[in-house]
């Protein structure tokens, strides 16, 4: 098992593509996405109506080697600044296969 940093990025679903693009630019080759996330935060309710993706979030989960973590943070931060959302970072072990 290998030490990694686990990122969890919650942002409007409209920006899902921006997040994965930013991750790819930061050299990330694997990530997962949950596409049906609702929530509440500084920018009000994102209660999930189907009418527009503005009121629906997604959650991107990425595990990266510890040394790559800073680069990922820097790639995500401008998106959070522009559009809001949350990015949590924690420690995890990756089960090798």
């Amino acid at each position: 098992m290998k030490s990694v940093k686990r990122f969890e990025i919650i942002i409007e679903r409209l920006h899902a593509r921006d997040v994965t693009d930013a991750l790819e630019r930061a050299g990330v080759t694997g990530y997962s996405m949950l596409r049906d996330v609702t929530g509440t935060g500084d920018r009000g309710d994102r209660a999930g109506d189907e009418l527009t993706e503005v009121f629906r979030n997604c959650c991107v989960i990425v595990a990266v080697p510890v040394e790559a973590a800073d680069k990922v943070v820097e790639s995500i931060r401008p998106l959070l600044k522009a559009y809001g959302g949350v990015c949590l970072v924690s420690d995890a072990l990756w089960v090798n296969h």
Partner: protein
Amino acid sequence: MDLSLIIGNLLNAPVLFFLLGTAAAWVKSDLEIPSPIPKLLSLYLLLSIGFRGGVELAHGGLSAGVLTMLGVCVAMALLVPLWSFFIVRLRLDAANAAAIAATYGSVSAVTFVTAVNFLRQTNVPFGGHMVAAMALMESPAIVVGIVLARMSDRDTTGPSSFSWGKVFHEAFLNGAVVLLLGSLAIGAITADKDAKSLAAFVDHPFKGVLCLFLLDMGLVAARRMGDLRRSGLFLGLFAVAAPMAHALMGIGLAKLIGAGVGDALLLAVLCGSASYIAVPAAVRLSLPKANPGLFVPMALAITFPFNVVLGIPLYMSLIQRWWT
């Protein structure tokens, strides 16, 4: 004022289902139409209205009158956001004013569809080209709004990643526009061959699907009403005055170019309605500083119910007086 038309509209299944949805949300019932069912319903409505518009367009052809109407529609889609921006700018910053301008310059497909249903019910004919007009009116206001915002404040348009390419893409290639224009084209191409065999899918369930979709719109609109406190009296008034003013202009222009009663109503509804599906997404991407808690509830919880419940019969009674 012809009250019987308004009451007749109120006692109409689609409008009643809208009110049922509103009522259910008010009493906090757990009635819900879970995602992505509303998406399926709206895909169906767009496909249906597009295809039938195409079939009728193929039969009617592209006369000078049709082209004039399309020109008027595009002109209104460019002008409405212009004055709307300057009016709202009196109270709000550039990003929010631009977002509201784009919202009211663009159109609400569901309001249009409800008006179409209203016309079919009362057997008033209308041209298939009005569907093309709706498709043409979806996007220009978005671009105008963003231009205005950037002109009055370079800083409104988000992060460094801003690009006009993205704006145009989002405005002109969003799913609703593509499906609508695509179905219109397919309807026009296959008018003779497929119109009959597709009728059972495209025509028959139309009104029922509209009922189900309006039920959901009622639920969503009522939930968004809570957000209206934030928007204040000024925006609340704007959300009622704008549709009436724009619909009136639409009616005037329809008279001017000699449009029929049905086309006049649809033009009024196109001018008077506000977008809450395509525009919020495009605006959120291009003007991230605009607060969707303002422009969405205005369109969804005030202007939409106003048009569907009162506006359509009101505009119709005006048109009937003036045209006869």
